[in-house]
């Protein structure tokens, strides 16, 4: 809508000609200028500029929907009202059905905690037919760090859904729905994204997994602000991709240690010197999510995977619907499973903290997990 041509908008002939003469051909160009600038550029009066702008705006502005019709539409057309159940009952209940469609869901945690395991499980689930709780469609898995293991995927399938995966033809069909891409650089990733956008709807793609987002930039640029700017186009693109295709998008993120560059206070807090702010961080390893604050705003749901005193937890750190709950989990041969469906509610910013204590288990693919 933004790139609508001025020539396609029914404006009075005189002003349409002036726009063309001054090389303003898209609505985007016209709307980016202020009224005064347009008056000067087009050499017309304020009333004419205003009426032209209001006509252009009316055409370019998106249509509205009442929240009620939005809800009805979602429940009628989409699987479970726009949610993808993960199979982890407690988590699904907290998230009002599962991972939401149309927005970004982030998995963040230290290395080896189980992010890729969860991604594999979700990819498998998405490929299954709907009567098994799946989305019955293709999955695009962007594997940046070459962690995708098809052997592990099939093992998860065999253990979780033996009735499907014991038949070789069915196993092939399901595994065949998961398409793995391995971009080796940020520019390759960019190209793949653009191709994906085109083929998403035609090819019945029902989920996109990017594992991991942070790895794409870690090799490329300098720290901090520059890194944030590098990814900003991608963030916006992936969000719009998720939005128009209404599919769940799962992205993993890494962690890094807290350094002095990280801000945690506003200027008015520094001035007032709140005593409560002076509690020193007592984590064994003070970790925070990589990719920065701009990324943290862009994701709608953030699931933190961490290890505390040797027990792994999956926490809902940011969600529009769920309270801040932490669920203990372990990794088994059939993927990830929760040890309890009743999450612990955590107070305060503790839910965002990422711990890495006592986490030394090796995941054995052939046996049950050591928990």
């Amino acid at each position: 809508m933004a790139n609508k041509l001025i020539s396609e908008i029914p404006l009075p002939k005189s002003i349409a000609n002036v726009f063309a003469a001054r090389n303003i051909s898209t609505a985007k160009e016209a709307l980016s200028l202020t009224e005064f600038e347009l008056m000067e550029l087009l050499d017309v009066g304020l009333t004419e500029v205003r009426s032209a702008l209001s006509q252009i705006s009316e055409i370019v502005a998106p249509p509205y929907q009442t929240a009620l019709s939005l809800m009805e539409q979602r429940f009628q057309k989409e699987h479970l009202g726009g949610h993808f159940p993960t199979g982890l009952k407690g988590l699904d209940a907290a998230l009002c059905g599962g991972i939401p469609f149309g927005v970004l869901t982030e998995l963040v945690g230290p290395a080896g905690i189980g992010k890729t395991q969860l991604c594999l499980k979700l990819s498998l689930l998405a490929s299954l037919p709907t009567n098994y709780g799946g989305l019955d469609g293709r999955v695009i898995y962007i594997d940046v760090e070459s962690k995708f293991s098809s052997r592990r995927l099939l093992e998860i399938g065999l253990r979780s859904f033996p009735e499907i995966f014991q038949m070789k033809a069915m196993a092939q069909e399901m595994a065949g729905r998961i398409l793995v891409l391995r971009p080796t650089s940020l520019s390759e990733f960019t190209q793949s994204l653009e191709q994906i956008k085109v083929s998403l709807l035609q090819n019945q793609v029902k989920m996109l997994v990017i594992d991991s987002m942070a790895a794409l930039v870690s090799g490329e640029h300098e720290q901090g602000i520059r890194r944030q700017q590098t990814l900003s186009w991608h963030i916006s693109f992936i969000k719009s991709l998720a939005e128009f295709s209404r599919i769940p998008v799962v992205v993993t993120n890494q962690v890094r240690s807290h350094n002095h560059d990280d801000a945690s206070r506003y200027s008015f807090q520094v001035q007032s010197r709140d005593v409560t702010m002076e509690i020193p961080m007592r984590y064994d390893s003070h970790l925070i999510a990589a990719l920065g604050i701009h990324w943290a705003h862009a994701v709608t749901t953030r699931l933190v995977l961490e290890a505390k005193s040797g027990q792994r937890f999956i926490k809902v750190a940011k969600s529009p619907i769920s309270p801040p709950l932490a669920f203990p989990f372990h990794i088994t041969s059939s993927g990830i499973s929760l040890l309890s469906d009743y999450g612990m509610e955590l107070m305060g910013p503790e839910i965002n903290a990422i711990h890495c204590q006592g986490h030394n288990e090796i995941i054995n693919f052939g046996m049950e997990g050591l928990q």
Partner: protein
Amino acid sequence: MEIWRLPISASQRGKLISAGYTSLSSLSSISSSDLARELKVSETEAMDILKVALHSRGAQTSNASCSIVEGAQSAWDMLHDEESLMHITTSSADLDNILGGGIHCKEVTEIGGVPGIGKTQLGIQIAVNVQIPHDFGGLGGKAIYIDTEGSFMVERAFQIAEACIEDMSEYNRFLRKDFQECKINMKPEDILENIFYFRICSYTEQIALINYLDKFISEHKDVKLVVVDSVTFHFRQDFDDMALRTRVLTGMALKLMNLAKKFSLAVVLLNQATIKHTEGSFQLALALGDSWSHTCTNRIVLYWNGNERYAYIDKSPSLRSASAAYSVTVRGIRNSSSSCKRIKMM
């Protein structure tokens, strides 16, 4: 020679001038019987003259300020307007207190904070609360929710709407003990029906929509709230020309202010937090830069203080800088549990 302008007959005018009354102020302190004696006219006629003089004098004093500058309003008249200002409650009494009753209508309020602090939650809560009927102290209006990031979740809006109706029924039960009908006729679906949802996918659409709102609201006069969630997202990337960004943002803010004043509605803009390098260290600040921070009338920062969520009035023409704690519960925004006062009604 203001007497010339009075709508009285020529002979009456002549008599007033020859008696020495050339200005309206000279007529202010005289009684009708004295005037009748001076002008040698009947008392009823004198009374009529005084009435006309009073009427045009009254009109003239209020015109005095307007005649100096076109469209100006005196501060005294504005005070009257301000006292009848409407507020939209946030459902947290502590937060309403520091806000002077709630989110002000006719003004643009910017609310910003780090991810997960509750900006969208507050936005949805206000979009529900603006619909509280007049009987319950609300505005009974509709809401426009402009979503630029896809953070609006219908199920959450439904939850909050349900809780709001339950609270109203509770309130009803205490107030109208003698009435049998304690049930409210509103359903959460009705509340959802009064939220006009727009999904924006680029900054061009954002500008176009804000331009179009004037016409839309003229056709839907009961809209009393516009929430933009978030105003930042599409302006944080894609802009190589920062000066252009500032001009576009300022233009947008002005249009929103005009909308707020013209239709007496509240405009709430949700902003994101970013990291700014000031005074040798990195601090949190709201996004979109320094020039943007001048454009909004009110600015509220949501932040973490220990284990609690707090709201801080960073900028306001009429409210003191103060913080209040609030919490995000399954029912929506409520007072923080640690500052809970005992409810005496029970």
